[in-house]
């Protein structure tokens, strides 16, 4: 029986070793301990309580861990595996424990205990706190993402930011792009306060973080590129007319956006450099007289594009092979992806390429749906009376962020496994057009 002992960073709690059978990987995962080094006087200060609370939140919401209520549930779980000797010690310890259910990923139903320690050991990884909450939380989240990757093979999401547009007063035409942690905390504005900026796409290239977004600063909405931390911006494209609803390819070498350069809203494909903007001429991808096209999204491998078009009467979602279009075979007819009849819009292709999230009306209320490409099946993910739009995937393809538009504009994160959304914004103002960095 292979045994894995796994531990994650500790703040409080006592030693708890719970050896369990572990069959996910062929080799035993090495023991990994993290020890935060607080001065003793601060050991139980509010600062650490906040860090502890953040870790608990992240384990549950970002790392797919399920918190187990002490003792009773732990007994039940441990009894399944008939682990000897050290169980006695485990049962005598109170404190929080998080169990990661591999059922979510493998269906095997095996469990790994994650436990916490407060005593430093020689082999502990050690990092000093900065006592700046945003920095320490980010560092903790990066470690947690690394842990998630190691256990599940899926990328972690806790350390990647969400970008969104925020308009403080809906009656005043000013709005900025903001960046925040995935739980909505540590939010900060990135663009000029006198601008109206929407549709952010955040990405990291050559070690720097950038945003691609739509700005009305020049009167007509145009695409701009800006490094996070700077207010200098670069025009992305010289294409005439409005430039709206950008999206970027996984390799950051291409973008697609909507423009009315031809006299109607159409999708254009553009070669792109992350720091220089557009390269060469944009390519018109699709046109139908008298119709409107919107919301392009790339497949992760860059071979296809999904977009919205109303050339069939009402807005629906279509898939277009980019290879067919680029070779101008004349057969580049987009494929209608079917789905509910209720005005399907704002599609977003999952990073693993397997799913498409979008918004569609169910009766009179917009809900978030997901389309499985392999099964060709549409599934409604959300319920409730709030209109929901603009889903954006996290890089694990298991979480989505979206915004409501009624009764108010707020951002929510949805875990596809639990189907439980949690709100990450509050207060007055319109929070919308979210984008989760991947």
């Amino acid at each position, binding site marked *: 029986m292979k045994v894995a002992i796994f531990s994650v960073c500790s703040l409080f709690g006592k030693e708890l070793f719970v050896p369990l059978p572990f069959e996910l990987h062929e080799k035993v995962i090495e023991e990994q301990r993290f020890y935060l080094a607080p001065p003793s006087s601060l050991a139980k200060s509010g600062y650490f309580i906040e860090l502890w609370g953040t870790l608990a939140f992240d384990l549950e919401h970002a790392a797919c861990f399920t918190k187990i209520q002490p003792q009773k549930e732990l007994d039940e779980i441990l009894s399944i595996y008939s682990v000897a000797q050290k169980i006695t010690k485990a049962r005598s310890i109170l404190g929080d424990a998080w169990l990661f259910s591999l059922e979510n990923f493998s269906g095997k139903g095996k469990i790994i205990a994650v436990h916490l320690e407060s005593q430093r050991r020689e082999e502990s990884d050690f990092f000093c706190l900065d006592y700046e909450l945003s920095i320490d939380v980010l560092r903790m989240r990066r470690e947690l993402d690394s842990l998630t990757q190691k256990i599940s093979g899926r990328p972690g999401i806790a350390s990647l930011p969400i970008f969104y547009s925020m308009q403080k007063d809906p009656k005043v035409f000013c709005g900025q792009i903001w960046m925040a942690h995935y739980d909505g905390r540590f939010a900060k504005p990135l663009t000029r306060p006198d601008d109206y900026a929407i549709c952010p796409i955040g990405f990291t290239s050559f070690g720097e973080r950038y945003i691609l977004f739509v700005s009305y600063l020049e009167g007509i909405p145009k695409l701009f590129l800006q490094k996070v931390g700077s207010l200098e911006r670069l025009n992305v494209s010289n294409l005439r*007319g409005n430039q*709206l609803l950008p999206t970027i390819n996984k390799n950051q*070498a291409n973008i697609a956006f909507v423009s009315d350069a031809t006299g109607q809203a159409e999708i254009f494909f553009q*070669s792109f450099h992350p720091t220089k903007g557009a390269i060469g*001429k944009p390519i*018109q*991808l699709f046109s139908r007289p008298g119709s409107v096209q919107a919301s392009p999204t790339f497949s992760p491998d860059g071979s296809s594009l999904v977009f919205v078009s109303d050339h069939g009467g009402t*807005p629906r979602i279509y898939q277009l092979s980019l290879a067919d279009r680029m070779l101008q075979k004349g057969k580049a007819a987009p494929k209608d992806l079917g789905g509910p009849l209720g005005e399907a819009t704002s599609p977003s292709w999952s990073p693993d390429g397997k799913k498409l999230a979008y918004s569609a009306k169910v009766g009179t209320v917009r809900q978030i749906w997901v389309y499985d490409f392999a099964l060709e099946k549409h599934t409604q993910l959300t319920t409730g009376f709030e209109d929901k739009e603009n889903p954006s995937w996290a890089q694990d393809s298991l979480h989505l962020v979206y915004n409501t538009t*009624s009764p108010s504009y707020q951002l929510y994160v949805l875990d596809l496994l639990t189907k439980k959304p949690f709100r990450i914004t509050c207060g007055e103002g319109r929070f919308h057009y979210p984008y989760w960095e991947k």
Partner: protein
Amino acid sequence: MEREDFIIHIGRNKVKKKSIARAGAHLFAALFLTGCSLWNGNLWEDAKTSARYIQRAGQSLVGDVQESKLVANQWEFYASSEEDFIPVEENDLHNTPSTTKANQQGLMQAKKLPANAKGQKPTSSDFLSPAGQLASIFTTLHFATDEHVLYKQESIDALKKMAIYLKRNPNMYLFIEGHCDKRASEAYNLALGTRRANFIRQFLIKEGIEADRLFTVSHGKERPIDFRDHKDAFAKNRRVEFKIYQV
């Protein structure tokens, strides 16, 4: 991913030697295969490609030498140097008439506006809502549900009045702002807002206003004037407004 930059030298001698030979080879292949009744769509594309080479070869013979041009990707071969973008081909539209060509070359919006009074690139603060007499000319126009065309005579008359004023004031630039009601999604509405604005723009062009003085702006449903969830509010929000920029 690495980007491939193609540097194409289209000089007289190179075209003469390489392209003619290549064109000849393609032409021979096309004729041979046609004779063997092995026709398919790909062959037609190759024949068109051959014709382009022959054309360029002919141009180089009469001295119309193209300068070296850096192209970002292979698809730029399909665009003429005058075009701002690489258009979708007619046959991609499955024999339906294209509106795109009608809007190219001379009917498209200008790339730039003239500098403002300070000699700077204009920003949104330079585009003014019409006031006084102008407000009665450039009046807000409202649309019926799901419509982007104006049918009422009073709306048509208003547009003609705008056209007359614009003709008398050649230094005036007009921003046509399309707005939508809240019922469709905000992303789709951003694209939809261009539809109403472009209808107005094309109407004014037909009335004789220069295309490069008219600009569209889509606000989608980002700027409602009535925030209620009621059909009266929807009717107020389905509108086109105007901003003026004068040099």
